């Protein structure tokens, strides 16, 4: 039996979480370093997975399979395709930065007793989320996936509700109220989605008699497993609803601005750059593969929802007064692009959507973490409280600008490649959708540059005058992310090589081919 690489990759952060949580109260720094160490070790393992994965090989690689609950045919089945490999790499990459960026976010306040151990809990919870996200990307058994898809909510709930942004406009009491509102809203939305999905999971088992993704897909492809049209559609909707809440897609998005606004910046990154990716990833893996016909049936409606998300999210971002909520609405717009790419069902759209997941993770992390550093310095999330920061903290302003430019998809930075691919893919299949989505790029310029202008330029505000520039720890967080944005912006080949074959498999599953160019089509006649 070969070395269970995938299990270990997922289990390592979980072990780290337990150990971090067990660190005694007085040894806060040790807990931080322990968490960082484990996240880095996970990164190394993820890199090994990335390298060991052969793009031209089998669809699912590094597979593991063990019986788990034989009575119901539930198996512990893991395996990764190119898309999962890319997203595992993204997750493992971002967690060390999240931990490093949140280094002081959970230091106990003076007033609390010495037995209180928030720091240990904070970092343990982050590692726990990482473990669950990684295993969700790896699971090829629907039931196994479902369990971790839902279990993720528990640590996330505590991270949002327990460790709020200290830079809150109101009093402590108001902050706590808002925070618990955000955490409960997050939980209820995602639980509702998850419960509907549970019904669909059970339904799938009743219809297919198995939870194994590959078995069901094979049986469907060979015609052994017939699904009535209506059954397939209902099951599809059950799955899609949960993923659309997680992604989040309009109109199921309102939990995200609350959650991202109230959580600390690193946790906000964890939500939007890591956890939400499970939603879009699952659309690609489960919705399209298990229910190809229903997916095609629902495409027009989903594309409309995606377009609304793109434009609506961008417009709302323009109207925000709170930096973090602005970034949250920008993310909603970007998730619209990802869903658009997935359901355009062209090679360019789907490759673009997968790249988009990775690139959006990196660019949002860069922007949000710098915004977090800024907010910690001034103690306010309101855009109006800033002004002229570039004069006093040029490096901070510069990195913030690069993050903003990445968010508006400037060529040369990673998100451009993915956004353009999504647009081209959508345009090839649905020209009108492509054109409408293109309007999003103007709005993106508007909300990012307005944010930059109001916070960083202009006369220096009195409260900002003494603001220190980025410290070494913060530079260590931001510099690699920016370097990565630049690198993937001009040389995305390592990612596309891994992603392309997986996308071709998915295209086969939904039995779609790319529209041929007009000239070639005519020549063929």
């Amino acid at each position, binding site marked *: 039996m070969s070395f269970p690489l995938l299990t270990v990759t997922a289990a390592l952060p979980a072990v780290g979480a337990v150990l971090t949580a067990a660190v005694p109260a007085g040894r806060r720094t040790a807990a931080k370093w322990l968490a960082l160490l484990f996240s880095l070790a996970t990164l190394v393992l993820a890199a090994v997975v990335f390298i060991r994965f052969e793009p031209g090989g089998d669809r699912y690689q590094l597979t593991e399979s063990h019986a788990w609950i034989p009575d119901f045919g539930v198996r512990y089945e893991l395996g990764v395709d190119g898309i999962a490999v890319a997203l595992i790499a993204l997750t493992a990459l971002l967690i060390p930065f999240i931990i490093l960026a949140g280094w002081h976010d959970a230091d106990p306040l003076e007033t609390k007793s010495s037995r209180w151990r928030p720091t240990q809990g904070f970092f343990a919870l982050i590692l726990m989320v990482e473990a669950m996200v990684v295993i969700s990307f790896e699971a090829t058994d629907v039931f196994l996936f479902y369990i971790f898809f839902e279990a993720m909510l528990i640590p996330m709930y505590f991270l949002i509700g327990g460790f709020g942004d200290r830079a809150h406009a109101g009093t402590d009491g108001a902050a706590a109220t808002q925070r618990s509102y955000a955490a409960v809203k997050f939980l209820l*939305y995602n639980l509702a989605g998850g419960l509907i999905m549970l019904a669909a999971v059970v339904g799938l088992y009743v219809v297919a008699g198995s939870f194994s993704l590959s078995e069901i897909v094979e049986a469907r492809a060979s015609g052994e497993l017939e699904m009535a049209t209506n059954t397939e559609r209902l099951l599809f909707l059950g799955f899609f609803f949960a993923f659309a809440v997680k992604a989040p897609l*309009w*109109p199921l998005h*309102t939990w995200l601005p609350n959650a991202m606004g109230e959580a600390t910046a690193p946790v906000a990154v964890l939500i939007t750059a890591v956890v939400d990716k499970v939603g879009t990833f699952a659309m690609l893996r489960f919705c399209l593969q298990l229910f190809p016909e229903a997916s095609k049936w629902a495409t027009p409606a989903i594309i409309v929802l995606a377009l609304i998300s793109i434009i*609506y999210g961008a*417009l*709302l971002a*323009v*109207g925000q007064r709170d930096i973090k909520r602005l970034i949250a609405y920008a993310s909603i717009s970007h998730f619209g692009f990802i869903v658009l790419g997935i359901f355009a069902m062209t*090679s*360019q759209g789907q*490759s*673009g959507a997968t790249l988009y997941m990775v690139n959006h993770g990196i660019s949002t992390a860069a922007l949000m973490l710098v915004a977090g550093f800024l907010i910690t310095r001034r103690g306010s999330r309101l855009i109006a409280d800033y002004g*002229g920061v*570039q*004069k006093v903290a040029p490096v901070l302003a*510069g990195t913030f600008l690069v993050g903003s*430019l990445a968010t508006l998809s*400037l*060529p*040369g930075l990673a998100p*451009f*490649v993915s956004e*353009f*691919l999504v*647009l*081209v893919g959508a*345009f*090839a299949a649905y*020209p009108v959708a*492509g*054109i409408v989505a*293109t*309007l999003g*790029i*103007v709005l993106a*310029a*508007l909300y990012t*540059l*307005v944010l*930059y*202008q109001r916070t*960083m*330029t*202009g*006369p*220096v505000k009195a409260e900002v005058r003494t603001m220190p520039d980025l410290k070494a720890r913060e530079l260590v967080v931001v510099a690699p992310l920016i370097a990565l944005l630049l690198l993937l912006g*001009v*040389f*995305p*080949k390592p990612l*596309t090589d891994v992603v*392309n074959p997986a996308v071709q498999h998915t295209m086969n599953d939904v039995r779609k081919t*790319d*529209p*041929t*160019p*007009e*000239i*070639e089509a005519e020549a063929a006649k």
Partner: protein
Amino acid sequence: MENLIALLVAAPLLGAAALLCGGRRLDRVGHWIGTALAAASFVLGLVLFGAMLGYDVEARTMRQHLYTWVPVEGFQGDIAFQLDQLSMTFVLLITGVGTLIHLYSVGYMEHDERRRRFFGYLNLFLAAMLLLVVADNYLLLYFGWEGVGLASYLLIGFWQHKPSAATAAKKAFIVNRVGDIGLSIAIMLMFTTFGTFAFGPVLGATGDATEGKMTAIGLMLLLAACGKSAQVPLQSWLGDAMEGPTPVSALIHAATMVTAGVYLITRSGAIFNAAPDAQTAVVVVGAVTLLFGAIVGCAKDDIKKALAGSTMSQIGYMILAAGLGPIGYAFAIMHLVTHGFFKAGLFLGAGSVMHGMNDEVDMRKYGGLRKYMPVTFVTFGLGYLAIIGFPGLSGFFSKDKIIEAAFASGGTQGWILGTVTLLGAGITAYYMTRVMILTFFGEKRWQPAPDPDKAASVEPGIEVTPGAMPHPHESPKSMTIPMIVLAFGSVFAGGFFSIGDRFVNWLEPVTQFEHPHPPISVPVITGMTVVVLLAGVAIAYLQYGRGPVPVVAPRGSLLTRAARRDLLQDDFNHVVLVRGGEHLTRSLVYVDHTLVDGVVNGTAASVGGLSGRLRKLQNGYARSYAVSMFGGTAILIAATLLMRAV
């Protein structure tokens, strides 16, 4: 030799990276590093030019393929370069003028504490602009296209502490983004039509596609060109862009970046040739902008904004020429090059004047400067003669050809375009003479320096004592030398290009060329141009040259007042787009909070209410629970019995 093309882009890019990431250590030498790398790029350009001249006319295109940028099934975006005669012309213009302006900036930005960063941005601009013109496909062109947009954004907003500069920078970027939509959609259309967006396959197959498709692509490219080249209706950003330091206005917003739209249209000539409707649209845009810019230029008292209006108008000429098809492409590019010389020279002259006048930009507060700044006066004067098309100077040759081509476009269209271009030449002569008289002739109308705290428009770094009278003086050598070199170009380039149709023959393999045959003979057109020109000069002289000029601008006619406000373009934008957008976003924020979120919160509240009511049944008395249990059991038993019975 081909492999040098990448170096052309890499040199300034290296400079940008070094200067922007290098930190304070490079503060003392940064500007020289930047200038040296720009010069290196220019030398490389000359070497490549020499090599190109050595090849046969048919085989002059050089290609270099670096690697595949975006490799996705069915979609190949390459990092690959193509250097043909058209690109070569641009490379030499960009690096040549670019190097001169780097040199000029060394003196101009001497007192600015962020000079290193300024040179980093300038180098970034050069790299992006070179990428734009040597790209061999539209996606890479788009890369450069947005790259110059970014550099322009950074440089317009270089003095970020001035809110006006930051706003102008943002406006420029966003208006350009609207144009970029055009380029994006054009690339998508090419992809769905041809399956590729590389120049060779697309431009070679334009005949196979339907005219409708070609028209659509053409119109989208025109939209892109309008954004970048500040053509109506996306021209509003250029005037505000004058908030940037003057060398930036000279390099980016006069000589090079704003002409990218002309490059795009000329490069895509094959597409426009296959789409007559799109060509008509191009011509209309060019003609409208040429008058629009000229009228705006007449009314502005800010010397840089007057020149910006002029730039807009001159690019209108180029766009118009490019819209005429093969009879116009070469002339468009020729005017572009000569314009690059004289307009850069004029801007540098304006910068020199401002440098000597405490950064005053209002021409009404100049006057009589010819004695104090002789070099600036002479070089500016030569640029002035060139731009109005004084016979024998550069502008005469290039503009005259465009007027000829306009007349030659045939039929009613020919007459209309010919008249518009002639009229434009007259207005050009008028507003440039006005600038000249107000600045260098007449009496001194100098004013004490404004209080820097009150006037936001003062450029920083230059120490200005509030209340001090300006002491105009000639600028240092590093500033005057570039001005002199550009003045040479303004005087001789046109004539040099025209000897034996040299320039046209040079470009012919890329752009094709048909000789224009205007309905009236060429000497008559030339004569008419000269007459119109003299009339413009005369009117300006009568108005400003004979008597004292008021320091405070008179109210002026309705047209003047509208022109001062950029013909109300900004007011329109403000009312329709900004206000409308604000209302839209505000109402959407409200909707999101009350409706979308409200539905969810409402559901939660009603569930809470229902449970509140159900809670009342739990009164805590064990006996009443027992009763309900008993009742429940009784009902169950009864139901079971009934079912049995049935």
